[in-house]
């Protein structure tokens, strides 16, 4: 198998595993469909926006959670935002943590919230690393003369 085919095979397998392990879902596929010659870096751009947004929200939540008296409504509002944007890009695991997170906010459970916050951080880091690998693979394919097909 030549280099290009190998890379393409790698990409397909890697992407399949991301779906299988629930890192990304159907909405991520939707994003791929929105990328074309006129917007070749769309997925990467949105994903970057999301990670920035996520970081900002996590920082805000951490601040609120370390207060003497926690304003759970505030935390909930940040979680709601994060849930929305993770859902919009197909970051399934992060979205799922947000669902649990919301429940802890409603229950005014600081410990639970802090655990979820940790979980969000963890998932954020994992997803970021995974998507970076994905984008690197895509770049390698393009560099080897191939094109990145719209994902299934």
């Amino acid at each position, binding site marked *: 198998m030549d280099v290009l085919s190998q890379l393409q095979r790698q990409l397909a397998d890697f992407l399949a595993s991301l779906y299988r392990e629930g890192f990304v879902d159907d*909405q991520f596929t*939707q994003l791929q469909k929105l990328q074309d010659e006129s917007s070749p870096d769309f997925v990467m751009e*949105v994903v970057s926006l999301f990670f920035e947004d996520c970081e900002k929200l996590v920082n805000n939540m951490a601040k609120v959670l370390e207060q003497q008296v926690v304003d759970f409504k505030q935390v909930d509002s940040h979680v709601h935002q994060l849930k*929305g944007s993770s*859902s919009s890009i197909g970051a399934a695991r992060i979205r799922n943590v947000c669902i649990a997170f919301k429940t802890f906010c409603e229950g005014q459970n600081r410990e639970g919230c802090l655990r979820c916050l940790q979980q969000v951080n963890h998932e954020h880091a994992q997803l970021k690393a995974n998507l970076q690998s994905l984008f690197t693979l895509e770049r390698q394919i393009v560099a080897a003369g191939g094109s990145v097909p719209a994902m299934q």
Partner: protein
Amino acid sequence: MFSGDMATAGEILRRSLTDEVGVSKGSVSGSEELHVLAVDDSFVDRKVIERLLKISSCKVTVVESGSRALQYLGLDGEKSSVGFNDLKINLIMTDYSMPGMTGYELLKKIKESSAFREIPVVIMSSENILTRIDRCLEEGAEEYILKPVKLSDVKRIKDVIMGGDGKQKKRRSVRKRGREDRIYSLSPSSLVQSSSSPAFDFLPSELKSSSPFSTLSLSKRPKLQTRD
């Protein structure tokens, strides 16, 4: 912020606002293209909706809040002697939950305006709350769709809007891997179709009647009837 000089309001206002809010440079054939005003407070969602619309051959203006939307439409109370007829918006898509002014409040303001009440407004929300959906549809929203918004949602809405003029397009029933329908509207044809889907059970009882036209009795306002 746009300049205070409202003398040649229409064009200038639109240009300076569009510089700020980011109008996509659509194709040259302006008459066929739908111009959509999208409203969402989330960066990520704005980027996605903009792309969804552009790739569906729509001209897009994206703003981050209801008040910016009203500003763009010229409904924010700023006195202008020039009408905004050249501001041809064909569709407004707005998020429901936004700080300041919700999508529902924006919807109300638009429907209260003589200049813009005919513009279809689609509400987008991550929350599947029937009372909320009901309220929005009653207030005159064209559709209430669940986020995350997909390409097929945009295509469908576009078809409905462009297909318009008395001709109700058949609504493809939307199934998302067994989950309930994500799209709600009061258009008679869609209700007739959805009566066969289990999701129909989730609709408020007033909407379940088998006769499509009796659904119009839900509306407290005559205008909902005349819209069809």
